[in-house]
């Protein structure tokens, strides 16, 4: 009996230790900083494009008038700052503030503050166009922005960092528990996204039969590069379809193992890169790849990005980032 109790308590003790290691190990904020740099750039570009027809999509009397949205979104928690203004000058003012916030997040200027403002504004746009003109890009953008709020996303690859260097502070960015928590939550959220994306495909017929990729490729409105040659390659279509489905379904398991993780992440690059190249959803494909970068180890990120960051720092402030 004593032995059984010892085993049980040992199990929970190890479980608690693993839980602590998973969530509370301080990590180099390089990964979170890279996600901020790229995610901030994507937020900036995404919202810059709204400027082309702000009155149509976001304006109070546009394609989806505010009165129409009020009928649909009765919950107080479905919120948007655009609901607070009934004029186009108000909408433009918010839009310009938002673009500044996204640019600051991208460049890493007052990173934590700009991350909070950028996230709130990104959600405001997304709620304003849901329904209306939202799609997966808005979900990915808001997901990335949400977790940037939680950690020191400007610790590296940022103007904040260069400013500290300029003032003579060459101390390396310290490992951070909150950076780990932010990255862990993003990783877990991404697992949820792929799991349900895979499960939703199981409701259909074409994904199970292996023909879905053809029907996606044959959609003229999506198509950005001609894929009609796939008509003569049914086996290839089936292979891509089945691989995509199984990759999505098992992403949440395989991405945690260090041996399967590179395969899973490179598959993500191929799948989302393919969507970007062939189906014209460049922004969505890139946003999902950016979210997948959260699985890169900080050492890997630093090995790839630090040389570029050093060049920028040398050029701008005459010092290396360290």
């Amino acid at each position, binding site marked *: 009996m004593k032995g059984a109790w010892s085993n049980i308590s040992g199990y929970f003790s190890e479980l608690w*230790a693993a839980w602590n290691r998973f969530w509370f190990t301080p990590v180099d904020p390089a990964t979170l900083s890279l996600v901020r740099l790229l995610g901030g750039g994507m937020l900036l570009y*995404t919202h810059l494009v709204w400027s082309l027809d702000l009155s149509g999509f976001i304006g109070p009397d546009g394609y989806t008038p505010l009165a129409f949205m009020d009928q649909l979104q009765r*919950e107080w928690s479905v919120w948007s700052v655009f609901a607070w203004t009934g004029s186009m000058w108000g909408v433009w003012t918010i839009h310009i503030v938002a673009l500044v916030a996204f640019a600051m997040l991208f460049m890493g200027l007052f990173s934590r503050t700009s991350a909070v403002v950028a996230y709130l504004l990104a959600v405001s746009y997304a709620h304003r166009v849901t329904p209306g003109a939202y799609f997966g890009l808005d979900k990915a953008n808001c997901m990335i922005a949400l977790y940037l709020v939680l950690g020191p996303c400007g610790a590296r690859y940022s103007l*904040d960092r260069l400013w500290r260097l300029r003032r003579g502070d060459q101390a390396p960015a310290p490992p951070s528990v909150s950076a780990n928590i932010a990255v862990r939550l993003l990783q877990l*959220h991404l697992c949820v996204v792929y799991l349900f994306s895979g499960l939703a*495909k199981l409701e259909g017929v074409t994904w199970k039969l292996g023909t879905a990729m053809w029907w996606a490729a044959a959609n003229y*409105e999506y198509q950005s590069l001609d894929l009609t040659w796939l008509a003569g390659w049914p086996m290839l279509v089936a292979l891509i379809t089945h691989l995509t489905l199984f990759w999505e379904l098992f992403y949440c398991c395989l991405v945690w193992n260090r041996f399967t993780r590179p395969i899973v992440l490179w598959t993500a690059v191929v799948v989302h890169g393919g969507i970007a190249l062939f189906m014209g959803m460049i922004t969505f494909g890139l946003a999902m790849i950016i979210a997948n970068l959260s699985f890169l180890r900080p050492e890997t990120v630093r090995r790839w990005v630090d040389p570029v960051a050093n060049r920028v720092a040398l050029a701008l402030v005459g010092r290396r980032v360290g």
Partner: protein
Amino acid sequence: MSKDRPPVPPQSASGMAGGERRAAAPSAATGAASSAERKAAPVSSPPAETKAKAKPRAAAAGSGWGLLPRIAVSLLAAFHVLAAFTAPWYIQLRPILRPALPPGTVPRDAQGREIPLEQLDPQQFPPIQPVLPRALAYGLRHYTNLLYINNGYDFFSPDPSVSHIIRYEVFDQSAQKIAEGKLPDRRDHWPRLFYHRHMMLVEQSRDPAMEGRGWENAIARELLEKHEGDAIRLTMVRHHLLAPQQVMAGERLDAPATYEDLGVLEYRRPRAAAAPSEELPRGGS
């Protein structure tokens, strides 16, 4: 941002103010651990059992966070992940809700003909509800709404489907056509993201949940404003997909035969003195 900047290099224990900075160096992390954790830490060659017990505490001490903050953050993280999981879980189940019928039962009308499930009276045969995801989604809805994690993730599912286009013609007061175009349009809507927004606008206006809400009128009004016209005719068009065999036989994806007109909406700009807008039969659904 300056808040994250360590005032001195992390090797110095004196500069480790704040949870994250304390965690910078192993020595500092140990120093920052709570007194209870320090007491629990092994001193010298502890027996195996003590080692096992001390291991989690030592691991936790590496974070520099006390037990209570770790428990609080753990609970918040678990709650958040549950919320992020619940929203797509329930959303995905909604389209597959079926009327509550005993297994094997085939509903029939007075003439003995089989009644399709979608035509059953929901009052008589209410759908089977997924009670757990529904309760969770309802209970967590304000949290998921506030954070915009209230989404499903059904990309190209359950099956990739056809696209829709809105063709429009704008007329002035003398009924002369002054503009025409379509949503989305690759030539007019650039860059690609802008095109995609128009594409989503058309697709989402066709959502069954939007039927009868007059969204088409809002689109018509906005297009009239843009082109400064007096009347507009919208045609909702479905663009059918071609099977591989049809493409192999030489058919083009954008062949005229692949487009099907679904309905027409004519809309006239309301005039101040005139009666309500003159709307002809709705189309597009």
